[in-house]
């Protein structure tokens, strides 16, 4: 799954980059690029989500909680990013 994320984002980024360089379809290029970046950034997050559900299924509550905390920290960074944007 991690591999799928890297491959998807790579293709998206690669295509977006090519389009940007040739100066055509700017809007599409932008979409591909930003989309690619978002997929790339999301890949570890999804991995954490998968871990959470795995530990929950195994009824390993300690680690379910731990991975949940990691998820919260990741989400907090997204919140921080948005907050900063508004202040500046």
């Amino acid at each position, binding site marked *: *799954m*991690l*591999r799928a*994320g*890297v491959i998807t*984002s*790579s293709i998206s*980024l*690669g295509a*977006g*980059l090519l389009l*940007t*360089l040739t100066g055509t379809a700017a809007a599409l290029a*932008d979409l591909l*690029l*930003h989309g*690619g*970046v978002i997929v*790339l*950034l999301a*890949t*570890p*997050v999804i*991995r*954490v989500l998968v*871990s959470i559900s795995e530990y929950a299924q195994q009824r390993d509550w300690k*680690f379910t909680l*731990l*991975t949940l*905390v*990691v998820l919260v*920290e*990741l989400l*907090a*960074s*997204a919140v*921080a*990013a*948005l907050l*900063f*944007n508004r202040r*500046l």
Partner: protein
Amino acid sequence: MPVVTPALALIIFVAGAVAGSLGALLGLGGGIFLVPFLNLGLRFPITAAAAISLTTVIATSSSVSAGRAGKQLINIRLGMLLEVATAGGSLLGGVTAQMLAQSTLQKLFGVISAIVAVIMLSRLQRRNVMLDPSADPGILGGRYYEDESGGTVTYRVKRLPVALVASFIAGNLSSLLGIGGGFIKVPVLNAWCGVPMRAAAATSAFMIGVTATAGAVIYYGQGQLVPALAAAAVLGVQLGSWSGMRFGQRASARWLKLLLAIVLFLISVLMFMRGVA
């Protein structure tokens, strides 16, 4: 903000490839080399350099973790536990990076590069740690089958608090400077926490993906990431690390490490001087 031209994209692609192959050969992320190149060589603002570098770290980490060798070696529980500390450090670092001046970050980078070089030199002779296969690894320890020795390696994790603190610091530096942080985690895990070298490297590779994400998200949200150039870098690094792993088996690690330690010292001085100027 730099303008995206084909020439620039190509340069970054190549830089990424070099960084990626060095990273694959040495077990470092490419960030240590990519950030100075972008900041000193191409005159990118350090935040832009860090942002691009962090995305390559994520890509590398995800690729390595998905690999078949990774699956067995990665100690997921340990990684996740340390992630709590690392992600926290990374979050703090990302926020702090927005508030620190370029020169401060450059000086910090200079200091850290020197430390990395020293660590690398001190570990030139590192070897695996082997334990009795029937031993109990405990909740956090690991057990994996090692091809070269044809046996099962079991290990326990010791001195967890040390690992947690080191992970927090590594996460902090990761977001501040745009590097992976593995150079702290691997030696700490290996030397102080009883984790065998390859498991430490694999677990660290797994962890830095999450770490870099927290930092990268903040940079991205701040609009400091130039997606097109990040694209060039990511693709370059992937090519580099693939070829590094494919053809790097025969390279003499020892000479390479010596060479790289020298390069890192050089980088350290340059970055520090730039920060002071």
